[in-house]
């Protein structure tokens, strides 16, 4: 069968377009480009409540992503949730008295771990555990507390108003 150059070119263009769109999907649309599996080290922290934190949630310091959550397990002895994080090996000068908090990105956004600065001279290393943790803010809990508090205040003020009459 004779080769048809135009046909070859058209098929070539088609295949190239298809492969290019696959690459587009892989790199631009999904997180493959930020999924560089570089050197990491693991640190753990135990939270009273890790809220809606998920495996692969980002760990950030001062707003910059420095790692990911690699596992979340419940420790039935201490009744706390133990979160293991993989931190990029580039950041190996994090003080070992840093604190971690679970925050929410935006009102309805995903939850992430934020690393607060410490002042110690010794650094976090593979396997070290962070002592200072702040649990996730549970909205229902906060609202309940607020309502109870305002109800108490109201009761107090009512009592004060009523007491002179008695």
């Amino acid at each position, binding site marked *: 069968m004779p080769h048809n150059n135009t046909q070859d070119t058209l098929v070539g263009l088609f295949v190239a*377009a*298809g492969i290019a*769109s696959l690459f*587009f999907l892989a790199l631009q*649309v999904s*997180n493959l480009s930020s999924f560089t599996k570089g050197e990491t080290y693991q640190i753990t922290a135990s939270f009273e409540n890790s809220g809606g934190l998920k495996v692969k949630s980002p760990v950030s310091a001062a707003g910059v992503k420095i790692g990911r959550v690699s596992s979340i397990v419940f420790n039935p002895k201490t009744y706390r949730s133990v979160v293991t994080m993989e931190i990029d090996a580039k950041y190996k000068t994090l003080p070992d008295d840093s604190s971690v908090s679970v925050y929410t990105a935006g009102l*309805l956004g995903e939850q992430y771990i934020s690393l607060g600065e410490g002042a110690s001279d010794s650094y976090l290393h593979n396997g070290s555990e962070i002592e200072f943790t702040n649990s996730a803010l549970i909205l229902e809990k906060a609202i309940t507390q607020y309502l109870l508090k305002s109800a108490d205040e109201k009761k107090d003020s009512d009592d004060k108003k009523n007491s002179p009459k008695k």
Partner: protein
Amino acid sequence: MEFFQYLGAATRESFTKLGRASYFLIGMLSGISSVLIRPCLLLKQMHSVGVLSFLIITISGLFVGMVLGLQGFYILSRFGAEETLGVMVAASLVRELGPVVAALLFAGRAGSALTAEIGLMKATEQLSGMEMMAIDPIKRIISPRFLAGFLSMPLLAALFSAVGIIGGQIVGCGLLGVDDGAYWSQMNANLDFQKDIINGIIKSVVFGFVTSWIALFEGYDAIPTAEGVSRATTRTVVNSAFSILGLDFILTALMFGDN
């Protein structure tokens, strides 16, 4: 009683058809090695199956993406979450609409053409003529077309999704004022390569296999008359649509059912 006789006959018919189809599949797959020796056969079919479907796929993809952008914006803006438009458009395209709609279009555009071509070859006794010349028509005619369909489908589905995402961006960011950076970065953060992209590609590979198989088998199995070919073409489109949608449900349940 007549009803049961009819039911029994229909069951027997469908089983023999399934048997013929499986036998045909084995012959078709074993012919692939001889296609790879003569890649110009494959190239010609890639042209008629893939390149000629290019336009309908890209234009449909663009419009589907634009509609998703409009509809998504309408719903998301109620919750003040317009920024996640990119996630919605990309996830629905990559996971579902890309593979499924591209496969339905592929069955309509390329599958029906394959059935009509093979059916007419059978009706005009070209296939028997080849057999007389000791050329296996399955190896020479069917296998290259199957391989071309099987290879083109994932590429077409990826094109559909990519063009659709750009269409969603044109409408969302250009027309409705969603932030360009938020569109892409939210998409980037929330779509997973393994879970979304790879599963979408697996879907399109399965659909490409099934639609090409159905189209070629219906053509090869057609009653060699004008009416028989026309019926076979209809059956190709109907059966492809059923199997694409049914398989899509099963695949989705397997891939995304666990969370």
